[in-house]
């Protein structure tokens, strides 16, 4: 009997081992790159594609990650801190030695859509799980466009990952669980606008990479699609219809917010500021409308706009309110106004601010502690820096302030704790 059990166990171990081996060597990996992509593009085709490629690359926000701060354009080098170590974006300028200058069309497609580059598997910091849904035409266009850029002779920085995460081939396991087998196809039941919006959201703009929470394996949790996630210490909010409505958006305001980065709901900050700066401000009106319609799950933009009901104030203990009002008058009202109305073109209003309406108080606490740097927005809009108050206010003052602001103007239960403030301080 025991012998039998042992035999079964041994067989199981061997089977699992075999299976793992098969995964590891990539037997289960499915390429979505069709055979005909092996055919190189002609010079004329490349020329014809490059212009549209510039737009696709902007919508896919390639530049923001593939250019280090003050670094050479498209030459990579931007660091990505992950729990497993630091990765660096790669040089995708057409430099033959360091960039993609000698990559074939098919190699480029496989990198973008399968996550397999010339030197092996890419790390999923490159959002290939999203780009997998890009059309071959769009990938061709980006390829053609990148080849028209100036080659940058800048070597790639090797990834600094801990074992075993530094084994690129190990990503076959990640891909097995997190990379869809095929690209999404259009939903015939929905309008062209909705489908375009989904394509922009899921494939090009890869919104889910930040706004969809991740599972234990760091893959996007499809059961919580776009429902918001915590990343780099701030909340990437819920951008489903429910979440957007809670923040005070309606479709047309959202579309203009993506264009300008500023609305009554506040000014884009953190990573979203860069998304507007490098990407969405250049998107066409039609695309922004499609994106917005899709996020609100509409087949077309509504003809009239009905702003969501303002949140109802929530009652708050009088001692908390007293402490918060004292702080507010002393350090906030000088800019945001005694009634939270802000100053047009100078300081955002608080009464309609999304940070007060999110379910989590994290972003508000973060802004109070660290402030927000001065930012130039599209057109002539500028926002002066917001000072940080981490040395001026105690944890208790910050918690009271956050609770009072969120309860009075954001309609949120006063559930920010001292610990939340402490934790936010530590996370910096």
């Amino acid at each position: 009997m025991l012998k039998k059990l042992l035999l079964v166990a041994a067989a199981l171990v061997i089977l699992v081992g075999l299976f793992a081996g098969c995964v590891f060597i990539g037997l289960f990996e499915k390429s979505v790159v069709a055979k005909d992509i092996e055919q190189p593009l002609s010079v004329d085709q490349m020329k014809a594609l490059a212009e549209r490629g510039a737009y696709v690359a902007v919508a896919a926000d390639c530049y923001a990650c593939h250019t280090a701060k003050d670094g050479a354009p498209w030459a990579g080098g931007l660091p990505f801190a992950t729990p497993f170590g630091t990765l660096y974006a790669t040089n995708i300028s057409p430099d033959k030695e360091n960039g993609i200058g000698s990559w074939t069309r098919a190699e480029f497609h496989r990198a973008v859509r399968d996550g397999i580059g010339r030197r092996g598997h890419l790390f999923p910091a490159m959002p290939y799980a999203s780009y997998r849904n890009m059309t071959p035409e769009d990938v061709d266009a980006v390829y053609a466009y990148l080849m028209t850029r100036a080659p940058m002779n800048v070597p790639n920085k090797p990834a600094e990952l801990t074992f075993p995460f530094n084994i690129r081939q190990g990503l076959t396991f990640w891909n097995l669980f997190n990379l869809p087998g095929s690209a999404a196809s259009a939903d015939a039941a929905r309008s062209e606008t909705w489908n375009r919006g989904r394509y922009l959201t899921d494939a090009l703009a890869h919104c889910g990479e930040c706004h969809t929470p991740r599972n234990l394996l760091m893959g996007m949790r499809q059961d919580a699609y776009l429902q918001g996630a915590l990343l780099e210490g701030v909340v990437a909010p819920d951008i489903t219809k429910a979440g957007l409505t809670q923040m005070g958006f309606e479709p047309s305001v959202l579309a203009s917010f993506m264009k300008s980065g500023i609305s009554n709901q506040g000014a884009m900050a953190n990573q979203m500021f860069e998304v507007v700066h490098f990407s969405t401000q250049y998107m066409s009106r039609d695309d922004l409308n499609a994106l917005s319609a899709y996020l609100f799950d509409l087949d077309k933009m509504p003809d009239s706009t009905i702003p969501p009901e303002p949140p109802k104030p929530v009652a708050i203990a009088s001692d908390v309110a007293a402490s918060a009002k004292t702080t507010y008058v002393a350090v906030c009202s000088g800019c945001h106004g005694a009634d939270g109305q802000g100053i047009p073109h100078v300081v955002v209003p608080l009464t309609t601010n999304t940070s007060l309406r999110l379910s989590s108080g994290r972003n508000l606490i973060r802004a109070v502690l660290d402030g927000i740097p001065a930012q130039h927005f599209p057109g002539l809009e500028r926002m002066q820096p917001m000072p940080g108050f981490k040395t001026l206010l105690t944890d208790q003052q910050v918690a009271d302030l956050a609770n009072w602001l969120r309860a009075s103007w954001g309609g949120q239960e006063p559930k920010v704790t001292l610990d939340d403030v402490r934790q936010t301080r530590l996370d910096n």
Partner: protein
Amino acid sequence: MTIATKKLSLTINDQAVGPIDVPEAMMMQDFLYEYLNLTASRMGCGQGICHACTIIVEKDDGALEETRTCIMGAHWFAGKKVRTVEGHAKRDATGAIVALSPVQQAFIEHFSFQCGYCTPGFVTGATVLMDQLKRNPIRREELEPTIVEALDRHICRCSGYVRYLEAVRDLILQTPGLVKA
């Protein structure tokens, strides 16, 4: 209509002030101007950008901190020790000025300002910087970047900044103990 007020007491230029009834929502700058006739800190932008309105807060350990008065409520300063630009020069028992502060003197000698609107802010900023260097001296090669970083936030519309920079640099170099050998 009545405006809600609150009692305010603080120390300004080594003198105890208050308790005075001050409107709850009044900004420090207005309090200094309207209640105490201390008008040296300038109202430039009123939005926390130009730093013409700054004053010094003396912390418990003696360290100095620069604070904008246009965006900070008067009651924020309750119980604190502050120094306005009126409190920098040396005065005799009658209150007459007998000597400018070293920073003020340096700005005059270097012709640092033209219209002078920004000058109180620069005097405040440079004085705080000198205090910081006394506590944490820096190396010579760090000096210019340190001055720029400390005073960069002060906006001047006339002078071109260079003579402010030179004045502060020369003063720091002449003052023993601020720059490491």
